[in-house]
């Protein structure tokens, strides 16, 4: 067992400080990538999981900033009394700020993830458990700042278990680059473990240096992974698409395609007429009159009907779940169709052959 003195001093201090600072900056940059991704998406498409990952990386980097202050720039001597406590040290205070930062931001991450996935029993179970943990941490923090470190080990263990479950679900959705994600995370966990006080007392500051290097590598690998990752909203949405219809302003079906083999639908012309009637009723009910470029969603158990009305054409999409991304794709499809066939639609004589290229377009957009 090694005896450690804080603030860290000696030959290794500066290289270690530089290494840790570099991965903090990289961590902040990754967090910003998620935030930018979130704001760059169309409003209806924004997925809170991007904000969740922003919180995770931002919190991690901020926590390390507090660790750096605690480990390099303030004293570890126990002072009695210390601020509002009976006793404590400046290092313990900053480390606690770091712990709380991470707990706070991981709770935000959990909230954002659980908004879309039910893990056990019902939504927000883990968020509730971890919020309670955060409150307990805060209570202990105000009682004695030196006893909170043990709580964080329990917290990290629980969070890691949750994260493993989450990752198993998430990894299934990833078609490529799984190896980058997995190796990045493994390096991150292993590297972080080497930088904890327990590991430092066993392996010394050299162990911490190796841990920091591993974390830097992991941050670089994860940056690559996340930069090449499509938006979260784009995962699996095609599986939920069942049928597509295009109806002109007179209520005549000009194109339709059924994607799901299980889907049993009535005659397309009847559907077109029905949807046109619904559209008229909706307009009357919402008192919006002749509103164009609006998206309506009709929901029944296990069935969603998304209607997008453009100038001369309305698009109708049947989906098995209410998702945001198909709305945007439907809007894109209808708008493109209308632009392509603008002149044809104005003088359409009833021949549907001219719309045959829409089949290729629909396959490109709605099929995997």
């Amino acid at each position: 067992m090694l005896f450690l003195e804080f603030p860290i001093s000696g030959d290794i201090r500066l290289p270690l400080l530089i290494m840790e600072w570099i991965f903090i900056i990289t961590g902040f940059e990754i967090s910003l990538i998620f935030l930018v991704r979130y704001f760059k998406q169309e409003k209806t498409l924004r997925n809170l999981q991007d904000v969740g990952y922003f919180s995770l990386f931002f919190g991690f980097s901020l926590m390390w900033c507090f660790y750096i202050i605690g480990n390099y720039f303030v004293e570890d001597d126990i002072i009695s009394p210390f601020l509002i406590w009976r006793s404590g040290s400046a290092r313990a205070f900053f480390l606690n700020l770091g712990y709380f930062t991470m707990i706070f931001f991981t709770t935000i991450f959990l909230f954002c993830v659980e908004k879309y996935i039910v893990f056990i029993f019902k939504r927000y179970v883990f968020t509730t458990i971890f919020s309670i943990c955060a409150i307990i941490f805060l209570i202990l923090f105000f009682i004695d700042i030196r006893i909170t470190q043990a709580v964080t080990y329990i917290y990290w263990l629980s969070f890691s278990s949750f994260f493993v479950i989450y990752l198993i679900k998430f990894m299934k959705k990833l078609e490529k680059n799984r190896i980058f994600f997995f190796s990045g995370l493994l390096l991150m966990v292993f590297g972080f473990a080497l930088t904890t006080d327990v590991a430092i007392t066993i392996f010394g500051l050299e162990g911490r240096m190796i841990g920091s290097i591993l974390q830097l590598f992991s941050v670089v690998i994860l940056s690559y992974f996340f930069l090449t990752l499509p938006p979260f909203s784009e995962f699996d949405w095609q599986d939920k698409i069942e049928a597509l219809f295009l109806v002109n302003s007179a209520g005549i079906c000009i194109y339709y395609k059924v994607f799901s083999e299980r889907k049993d639908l009535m005659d397309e012309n009847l559907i077109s007429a029905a949807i046109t009637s619904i559209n008229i009723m909706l307009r009357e009910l919402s008192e919006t009159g002749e509103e164009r470029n609006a998206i309506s969603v009709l929901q029944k158990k296990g069935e969603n009907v998304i209607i997008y009305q453009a100038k001369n054409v309305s698009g109708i999409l049947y989906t098995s779940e209410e998702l945001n991304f198909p709305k945007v794709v439907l809007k894109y499809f209808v708008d493109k169709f209308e632009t392509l066939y603008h002149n044809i639609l104005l003088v359409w004589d009833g021949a549907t052959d001219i719309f045959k290229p829409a089949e290729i377009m629909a396959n490109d957009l709605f099929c995997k």
Partner: protein
Amino acid sequence: MLFQLNKIQEIELLFYLTTTILGIQLVIYFLYRYYKIRDERLPLNMILLSFGVFFIFFIISDFILAINRLFILDPIWTEIIYKFGYVSMFLSTIALLFFISIKEFSKIINTKIAKSLIIINLIPIIVVILLPSSELFTFLIVTIILSAILIYFLIFQIRLINTSKGIIKNRLLLIFIGTDLSIISLFVVMEIIAGFYPLNILIFMGISLLMAGLIIVLLGVHSFPAFYELKWKDNLLRLLIIDQKNHTSLYSYDFSELKSKHKDYKRLFSGGITGIDSILSAITKTEGEKMNKIKQADSLILLEYGTRSPLQIAYALIVKEDLDSNRFFLKTIKNQFEAFYKEILSEVDSFIGSEEQLFGSFDLIIKGLLY
């Protein structure tokens, strides 16, 4: 003990490290963007290369000066490293001046001044190499010449922004503001080196300015569009998209008020281009090769060919002058047309007679490309 810095110096080093990392990423991004479009030979895209080179030298200079101040204690080594820092700084301004000296900019500024300043810029480099950095004379020479270059650069910025329009104007504005902030940060550091101020909060001010500058430049260079030559739009006359297999015109667009001499101009043009190509191929025995330019009196016909076989689509752009921007514009039109109508183009033979109705909506894309 390897290095012994006090806590303030350590924090200063961490700040410098942050700006260096940001700067290196910015340089990589500039060079990457330039590499991606280098084949298009648009002269104004040199902005990406020039600013990339500018920031390489700038960041190196800044970091060298910081390392020197923090770590090097030996006066001889200090002096040598300062000289490296200064030389790197002046090489960075040469990159900016080189960009301004491009012939295209003679429409907005006297580029001969830029060329002269490149030569004048060598004076401080020589002065810094020959004289001690702490001499007042060195500081004055450096400051005066650097100020002259920056005033010229500022005038250029204002004129270029006034001439530009649309997205390019916004992006240029961000790049220039960011660059100016970075240069101002350099002045702060220079003053400290010259001994006018003790080491204090000014250093952190300088680093913060530099950091802000780099972030603003990064925002500007993000999605930087192709930089066309100035007033390139005035050069455009007419666009025709031809189905060479069926000798028909799929789409046409008039950029000017130019009136056709013939009523059936489009059909004549479509057949004519295909005919000229066939005759030329036969007489020059170049059957596999395609014609890419026809010069006729005061105008030029630039030609591009579709990539979607078995379709034989030709894209003809009639212009007044042969500018690289026009060629790039024609390639962009080709890519947009093929992407927008990819579903229809695969069945174009079944829509003979309806071409005008089908492809008329491409007007919207053309207007978008013209911003």
